[in-house]
């Protein structure tokens, strides 16, 4: 058997990897719509409910081929969602408890059925446990093709109904007024999530398959404000995570695929949180630093202007640095960097007297005067017409924390509240 099938594993592994990658892509795309619709966890109840269907399909048919089991999973996923809707509509139980209830009870029923059938020693029932945490090594090529086919259909469906889905996600009232069936589009979205959860089972398992729908969209959201780009990026993140999971679980025997796929997705997500432009942590830190430097440059300009007004001879950088760090309680490095920028842009130039003293250049002098004029202007506007000032200042102002002494800020805020 091994001799005959020797060339096969490579082919099989490739097809399985491709199939699981397609599932990862489609889950990312569908999950993005769910995230935009603010229902990121829509699939969790369905995911936990799939286990009952897998076990019941096996017990009812005695077969354990993937299409049969996944058909059972789909039926019970839909039943789980229906139970969720029934609990929400017919009882006083609130949404969060209803979701947790369906998750816990349906998963318990699945575990009881699975464990009951393996305790009876039914042939083939032992392998069903791979649906708990995912196990792609056992997938056959034609199963993988089935998963890939369903995933492609899901992506095509999203592409076809993209405009409608976005309208519902971003402006429900507008979509309803346009005459689109908002409720049905929502039902279709949840159904699509349920389908993705079901085809994601072999890769991620019932407990973790939600992550395939949740994590890639969150990662993609960090990189873009465009919905279409986000869907595509989420698909790519899901695809990469699925490939990484399949590869590692193939290389390290005994590791279930699901947690590996999820960890890969989580790593990409964490990376996005750190390095994504604009929204990422690094970008935010750098923007904050730029604001702080700009503010410090302004303070330095004001100091130089005052010293020029007091008399010729310029001012010493040490003095500026001491005053700024003292007044603003800010880091010496930030102050020095701000001063260096002033020097580099020739806003301050060495004073003719020398002795390491500096003075404002002509353009620097103009800039300092302009800055002072502007601040005075705003100050009088804020005092004379606070309402008008509030309107005009509706632009991206820096966070007060970036520039004000924290203690002072606390006192000011307390005084206001």
């Amino acid at each position, binding site marked *: 058997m091994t001799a005959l099938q020797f060339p096969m594993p490579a082919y099989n592994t490739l097809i399985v990897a491709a199939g699981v990658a397609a599932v990862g892509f489609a889950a990312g795309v569908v999950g993005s719509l769910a995230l935009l619709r603010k229902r990121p966890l829509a699939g969790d109840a369905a995911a936990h409910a799939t286990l009952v269907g897998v076990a019941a399909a096996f017990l009812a048919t005695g077969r354990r081929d993937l299409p049969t089991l996944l058909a059972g999973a789909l039926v019970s996923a839909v039943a789980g969602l229906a139970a969720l809707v029934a609990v929400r509509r017919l009882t006083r139980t609130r949404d969060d408890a209803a979701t947790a209830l369906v998750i816990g009870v349906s998963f*318990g029923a699945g575990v009881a059925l699975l464990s009951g059938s393996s305790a009876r020693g039914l042939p083939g029932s032992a392998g069903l446990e791979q649906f708990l945490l995912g196990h792609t090594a056992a997938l056959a090529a034609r199963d993988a093709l089935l998963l890939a086919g369903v995933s492609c259909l899901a992506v095509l469906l999203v592409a076809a109904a993209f405009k409608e889905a976005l309208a519902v996600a971003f402006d429900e009232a507008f979509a309803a007024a346009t005459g689109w069936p908002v409720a049905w589009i929502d039902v279709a979205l949840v159904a699509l999530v349920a389908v993705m959860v079901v085809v994601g089972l072999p890769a991620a398992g019932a407990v973790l398959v939600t992550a395939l729908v949740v994590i890639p969209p969150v990662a993609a959201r960090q990189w873009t404000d465009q919905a279409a780009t986000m869907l595509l990026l989420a698909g790519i993140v899901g695809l990469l995570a699925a490939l990484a999971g399949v590869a590692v679980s193939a290389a390290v025997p005994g590791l279930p695929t699901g947690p590996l796929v999820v960890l890969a997705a989580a790593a990409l997500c964490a990376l996005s949180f750190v390095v994504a432009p604009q929204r990422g942590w690094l970008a935010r830190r750098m923007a904050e630093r730029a604001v702080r430097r700009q503010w410090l440059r302004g303070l330095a300009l004001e100091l130089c202007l005052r010293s020029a007004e007091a008399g010729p001879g310029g001012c010493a950088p040490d003095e500026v640095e001491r005053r700024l760090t003292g007044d603003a309680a800010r880091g010496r490095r930030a102050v020095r960097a701000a001063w260096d920028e002033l020097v580099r842009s020739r806003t301050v130039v060495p004073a003719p007297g020398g002795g390491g003293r500096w003075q404002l250049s002509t353009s620097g002098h103009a800039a300092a005067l302009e800055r002072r004029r502007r601040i005075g202007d705003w100050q009088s506007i804020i005092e004379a017409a606070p309402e008008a000032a509030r309107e005009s200042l509706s632009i991206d102002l820096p966070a007060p924390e970036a520039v004000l002494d924290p203690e002072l800020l606390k006192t000011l805020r307390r005084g206001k509240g």
Partner: protein
Amino acid sequence: MGGTFGEQIAIHGWALATAAVVSAACAVVGTLLVVRRVSLLGDAIGHAVLPGIAVAVLAGGRPGGPLVFAGAVAAALATVWLTRTLHEGLAVDEDAASGVVFTSLFAAGVVIISLAGPRIDIDPSCVLYGILELVPFDTVRVAGAAVPRAFLGAAIVLGGLVAAAALSWKFIVFAAFDPAAARALGIPVGAVATGTLAATALATVAGFEAVGAVLVVAMLVVPAAAAELLVRRLHHVALLAVAIAVAGACAGYIAAWHWNTNAAGMIAVVLGIEYVAAAVLAPEDGAVSQAVSRLRLAWRVACEDRLAALWRAEEGATAAQSVTVSRTGMLDVLAGWWLRRDGSIEAGADGERLSGRGRRDAEMVVRSHRLWEAWLGRHVALPLDHLHPPAEWIEHYLGAEVRGRIEAELGRRESDPHGRDIPPEA
């Protein structure tokens, strides 16, 4: 297993006792989660404690020991902190943030356990659905008796939770239902929230060995959700939730024994059945009592409509006005039969006629109807032919007192806007 009958009984007894204690602890915490509307926090923590437990066991802790409890609480706090950081710091939708964090942590826990393999005293399947059946075999000696470690851990957690809840009950209630007012009165709302969180982690770990990480969510949420349908006051909900949980644990364990299947799964199923029973049978909000009260109302409406129709027909026979009596639903036929048997309707010369009592009842319905039409006609700019439908509905709900007040306001009118007489009060 094996052993004598007595040993068997002792083993099952310990497993049953452990299940009951774990369920009770989860039910107490679950009540807080459900009323604070953070049930999914229980789900998230149930998953996310896994890496904490795994690392603690790798560091030499024993399941059920203090190190494992500490690891789990740390993991729970980390979950909430990470979720909040993603939500507030990076503007990720709150549900999505929670979904990212708890699935990632759970995945990390599974990978740690799988990689550690034989070096770690956790069975990977136990992670998912517990091994309640094996709990009695891992014992410690307490006062000379062999007590299962899991039972001991769960009993200590239960005792601690009950004591903490009893001591801070007023704070808990206040913080759950009106956090703003509670904060204004100086109640440490944040501490109560953190305490709830730590309690959830403790109950989760207590239940971890017995029922597994995922099924803990059923034990946390279902008893409280069921109890909430049955009673209103929070301490009643908590006590009833504990009772439901213990009953579910016992019945589930016995059912699992009978059908030879996983005990934790069966306990979750029995809890689900208990919830459905509560939803169906609850005295006020249950499906049955709602259906009964709807049916009772429909029955009264059918009887009153029937009497009123007959009264109008008799009025029409004298005043030569047309009336329509053409309702032949199942309920109307039954109502007619009942009214004849009851003596409100009697057989007349050509068909049916009202008896004295039937006429009095019918007059009150018609009086309500016509008074309402008159009141609407005066106060609401409705065309004449639009007065009938609302009156047809409200005639069943107006009592003598409201009729009297409407009449007083209308100033003793004797006819409705259609010019028909309003019968006097009985």
